[in-house]
């Protein structure tokens, strides 16, 4: 399918801007659970981008793909796979309907992130419509481009609050010849040590995960390089690894099957203890990204968890939570911003969406 509805989208946004109508931006609706709920959004008009789809250009030797925002992630991944390439940030989809636009708007990356980079790192350019209904292009389809401010990357993770993504250009990479996963039984401190030690050496690491006293390390590269790395790090070869990493990325592992709120903590990788009060110490924790990402199942108050994340020089996001608890955690789903940064955020929101019509409150109540 290949449809261009950019004119309709632009008209709808222009009209919404004139009438100050709030718009709720939807792609595949696969990540609707993510982000703040806001009263303004409950009665919002829907702006559906999913019909704006189709790959616009892809030449494997240029390592670049450009697609309309509503293009399903699966379609892009299939096309790349057929050509021996991949999105190296290994984005989670969370549903078959996930689109490339939603993937970039949320800037979510999978297990390979710590070793290859995040969604934003692979974003080369985009076309957007801002809150005034203006169609604008930033960045481009080349690897290096420093003309003008990096507005493209500003869109990654802005969750539609600064502009509606129409097209994105992404850098892609060749797939690896061989991939294998080694596993180790060890306590958390030893797992962190292992991950740090190996990360300081030129091993072909591509993912790491620790939970239930098992550390799993994925190696990717040329056949000889991976074989040599297995000899270096040891451990047991873990069968069915590719399914495991898929399930981790899509949060289908048993670990994620919980009634408790699920927190995502991004912090300094060498933090051993989150310093949470003893009552919460027993809570389940899963480590990824060499220790720099922690998933925490906990019903501790949000302020306590966010305080712990800040103390570790990081931030905590309430990633998933049972619906009835929604109100309890308002407004602090995302880590509160210091006042100086919040001021800049508000100014930027004003610069792109002066009528405050694009996904208001999705990220912070003030935006």
């Amino acid at each position, binding site marked *: 399918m290949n449809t261009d509805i950019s004119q309709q989208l632009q008209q709808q946004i222009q009209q919404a801007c004139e009438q100050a109508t709030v718009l709720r931006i939807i792609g595949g609706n696969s990540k609707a659970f993510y982000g703040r709920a806001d009263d303004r959004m409950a009665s919002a008009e829907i702006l559906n981008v999913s019909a704006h789809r189709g790959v616009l250009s892809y030449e*494997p*030797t*240029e390592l670049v793909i450009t697609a309309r925002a509503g293009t399903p992630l699966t379609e892009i991944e299939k096309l790349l796979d057929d050509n*021996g390439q991949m999105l190296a940030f290994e984005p989670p989809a969370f549903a078959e309907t996930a689109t490339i636009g939603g993937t970039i708007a949320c*800037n979510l990356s999978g297990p390979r992130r710590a070793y290859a*980079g*995040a969604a*934003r*790192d692979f974003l080369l350019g985009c076309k957007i419509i*801002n809150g005034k209904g*203006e169609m*604008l*292009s*930033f960045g*481009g389809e*080349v*690897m*290096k*481009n*420093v*003309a*003008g*401010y*990096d*507005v493209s*990357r*500003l869109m*990654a*993770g*802005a969750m539609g609050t600064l502009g509606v993504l129409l097209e994105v250009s992404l850098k892609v990479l*060749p797939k690896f010849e061989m991939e294998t996963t080694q596993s180790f039984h060890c306590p958390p401190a030893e797992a962190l040590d292992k991950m740090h030690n190996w*990360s*300081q*050496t*030129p091993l072909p690491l591509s993912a790491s995960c620790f939970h239930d006293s098992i550390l799993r390390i994925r190696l990717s*590269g*040329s*056949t*000889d*390089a991976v074989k040599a790395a297995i000899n270096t790090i040891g451990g047991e070869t873990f069968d069915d690894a590719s399914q495991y990493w898929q399930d981790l990325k899509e949060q289908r592992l048993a670990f994620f099957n919980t009634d408790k709120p699920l927190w995502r903590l*991004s*912090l*300094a*990788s*060498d933090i051993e203890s989150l310093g949470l009060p003893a009552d919460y110490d027993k809570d389940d924790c899963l480590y990824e*990204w060499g220790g*720099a990402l922690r998933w925490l199942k906990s019903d501790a108050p949000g302020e306590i968890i966010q305080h712990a994340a800040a103390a570790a*020089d*990081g931030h905590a996001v309430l990633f998933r939570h049972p619906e009835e608890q929604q109100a309890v955690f308002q407004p602090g789903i995302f*880590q*509160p*911003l*210091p006042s*100086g*940064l919040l001021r*800049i955020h508000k*100014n*930027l929101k*004003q*610069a792109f969406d002066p009528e405050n019509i694009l996904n208001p409150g999705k990220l912070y109540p003030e935006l």
Partner: protein
Amino acid sequence: MHNSEIIESKISKSALIDALRHFIPGESILFEEEDLRPYECDGLSAYRAIPLIVVLPETIEQVQRILTLCHEHQVPVVARGAGTGLSGGALPHEQGLLLSLAKFRNIIDINPKRRTARVQPGVRNLAISQAADQYGLYYAPDPSSQIACTIGGNVAENSGGVHCLKYGLTVHNIQQLKIITIEGELLTIGGSGLDSAGYDLLALMTGSEGMLGVIVEVTVKLLPKPERAQVLLAAFDDVVKAGEAVGNIIAAGIIPAGLEMMDRLAIRAAEDFVHAGYPLDAEAILLCELDGTNEEVSEHVLKVREVLKQSGATEVRTAKDEAERLVFWAGRKAAFPAVGRLSPDYYCMDGTIPRKQLPQVLKAMADLSKEYELPVANVFHAGDGNLHPLILYDANISGELERTEEFGGKILELCVKVGGTITGEHGVGMEKINQMCVQFNSLELQQFHAVKAAFDPDGLLNPGKAVPTLHRCAEFGAMHVHKGELPFPELERF
């Protein structure tokens, strides 16, 4: 500077000096003509201006007070690192204060577990890798000026280097910044994790050319040093074949650490200068560096050799040891000064194009070279399509610089036309400000101005650089009417 970019400060030079002396030692405030002269330009010496005052603070608090003072009295501020930039980004403002970060030279901390280095902005790029070496780590972006350029400037320009295709630019290799806003407020952007809350201000600051804030601390990511690096040199009797070989290497599933191309004129210049043993009968050479684990490099060297031969290389050499690897590179690294020996002056361009457009762009450049009667030597970061055409000219011949600038402008416009950009890694600065009018339309430029205003509503930080006013574009556009369409029709003309 265009009329629409002039700022009237509300304080006299002497009053500003007096105010600065309250918190900055006298010897760190320069205001006499002979002391200001060394700051009149950066690496692009074709543009020069004498600033009102140069200040060399030593502490973050001093920077905060300087900016507060300038904000209060509406004094333009231009931040400067090592002054090695090639686009005039640190060109002083005649009515403004030049803020040198040269005294911020400390490496604050290297954390091998986190693989980060926290450094002050005046630390040299190469010094970071040297300090991290004891842990087997290094800082990947390596602009050619890395022995002299400083990390604050690298962030401001989003500097690249020869290893970008595999390891990314500055924006991919930093984790946290401390900046001072024009109001004097200290902000921490990013954190110790791999991402941070809110908008990606780290990306927005990177490459913002001193327009949004003054960088006072940078935390960079460090990488483990590759176990082994190996380089291949391939000669071609046709530049187009060399370009195709680049695509073929990537099609084979290999991302080289560096992939550089030089044309005949650049090869000759480099060979005369450093005697790297380059084949002088070649129309183009490719240098392909592979790095990684020992096994991977061995495997890839064999593969790349094969691909190069199949792509029509007349000769393929593999460096037999580390010494020869360095000799292969020496020619490429000395290409700019080598070309400098051929001609009194040269002008380095920085356009980037989709690689498949290379043959077309090379042909068009050769035609332009004839039209303007100015020779061009070509050096490319071929892997990522970043071109560095060097236009040879003589500034002492009246009108030659102007002709060179016009020729350069045409090359950049050509890059935009084929889907590329006017600057891959050197920045817009003063040099390419007119070509920004070609790359972006007025709505996009207005959006850039709105971003600027979100940080610096009075436009005091580095005025007149990086993003042109619409009035400037209207006047520039008047000289470049395409297909009879008047650019920027919404503006009145004068």
